[in-house]
């Protein structure tokens, strides 16, 4: 259980859902973790429950100054930063052209600009660490078109391409950059969208999931993939996006 021993990690969107599961596993595996979230109280509550290896900081990932401050808080708390998990994100579930311009811009600001700012502000300390690892949480929606998830899918595709270019450009600095692309995972985000999907598709969500990927994935399973990519065991992996989806995207139908 020591693969992340000594790692100093900043995780965005860590108050709940995937980010919380990633923070929990990172602590279990020996990392020190800064939980960043726009929900400062939620992040503090989650960090408190994780014990002395965890701290928290408020962070709106669309705000450059707040992202820079979260990076600085991590460096100050742990005497460095070698692992960044850009997880903060939102979803909008509706037919693509029912999105308002404001909805589109807000989603892109959080899901894409947030990842860009996270990497931009963290790359100094990541390079200084000599073992920098960035894991960006994308989605299976980043590799395929998904009805009702059009803006979300576009934003997650952008996360993959940001990761690829960053991998090439940051290689000389010894920083690895990879993306994780989960299929449907049991989180509050998915719970929220179930009624909308069912109303529009006309099929029970459970039946949809049962056919396409047998079951929902768990936040823990996404955390495991994130932990692997953050660890030294993945030293030859950079610029990749690792899909975990129970076989959803392997088949056509």
């Amino acid at each position, binding site marked *: *259980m*020591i*693969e992340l021993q000594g790692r100093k990690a900043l995780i965005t969107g860590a108050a709940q859902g995937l980010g919380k599961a990633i923070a929990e596993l990172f602590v279990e595996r020996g990392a020190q973790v800064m939980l960043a979230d726009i929900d400062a109280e939620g992040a503090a509550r989650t960090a408190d429950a994780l014990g002395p290896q965890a701290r928290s900081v408020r962070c709106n990932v669309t705000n450059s100054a707040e992202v820079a401050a979260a990076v600085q808080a991590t460096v100050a708390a742990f005497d460095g930063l070698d692992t960044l998990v850009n997880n903060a994100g939102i979803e909008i579930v509706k037919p693509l052209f029912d999105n308002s311009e404001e909805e589109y811009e807000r989603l892109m600001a959080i899901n894409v600009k947030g990842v860009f700012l996270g990497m931009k502000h963290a790359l100094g300390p990541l390079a200084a660490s000599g073992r920098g690892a960035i894991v960006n949480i994308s989605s299976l929606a980043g590799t395929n078109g998904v009805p009702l998830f059009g803006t979300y899918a576009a934003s997650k595709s952008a996360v993959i391409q940001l*990761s*690829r*270019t960053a*991998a*090439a450009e940051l*290689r*000389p600095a010894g920083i690895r950059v990879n993306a994780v692309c*989960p*299929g449907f*995972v049991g989180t509050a985000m998915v719970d929220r969208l179930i009624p909308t999907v069912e109303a529009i598709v006309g099929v029970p969500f459970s039946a949809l999931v049962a056919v396409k990927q*047998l079951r929902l*994935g*768990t936040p823990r*399973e*996404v955390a*495991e*993939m994130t*932990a*692997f990519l953050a660890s030294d*065991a*993945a*030293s*030859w*992996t*950079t*610029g*990749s996006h*690792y*899909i*975990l*989806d*129970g*076989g959803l*995207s*392997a*088949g056509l139908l």
Partner: protein
Amino acid sequence: MSSSPLLLQDKVAIVTGAARGLGEAVARAYAAEGARVVVSDIDAAGAQRVADSLPGAVAVACDVRVPAQVEALVQAAVDRHGRLDIMVPNAGVARVAPLIATSYEAWRDVTSVNLDGVFLCIRYAAPALIAAGGGHIIPMASVTAKAACALIGSYAAAKAGVVSLAQTAAIELRAHKVQVNAILPAFIETDLVKAHRAEFEEQLGIPDFNAVIAQRQGRYGTPEEVAQLAVFLASGRASFSNGSGYVLDGGVSSSLL
């Protein structure tokens, strides 16, 4: 890894092409994580040498092109350990030549080992994995399944076939709790790369193959790094992965320039 629990304690694993290279590294990494490894290779003496150096390992000679031999390999694992949990179809060969200078015999030599062999490993291992209540098939593909490299067209085509086989096997076997995920490495400094560096330079029109590697992927990867992914995928930690092809290549395939 000191006191951490072993990731593959008592799992029974077959690794083909394990007398050297990537297969040997996977066999060693699996044994280090507590697996009982069946070290298989067409080179019986080489397989024996690797097995002798690993606790709990045995060697079984196998030509993966021959259905009866692959069937016997799986049976040998089940006879010895009572079950099979992990199959790593890794055996592969390459011929280095432009397509227009590739004989049909050379094409079949490559595709029979690299593609037919993987099919046979899936075909005969799957029933044993199902009987064990689930398990893992982890074929060794290559990043050349996704983008070409001159002179190894037959190899790349076979590896693309391997990725496809992994997808179909994943969706057909997932109800039986069998996970199938392919590994797509690039470039490892194998004997093949060393032996043919000058031909690659000539055919690709580059003065220094190693310099291109340095620019595009920083350095060569190592077999041990590939083996770490094979460990992760066979462990309970990758339980939501199925039908995926995982690239580990130092970034060479992820950017255009």
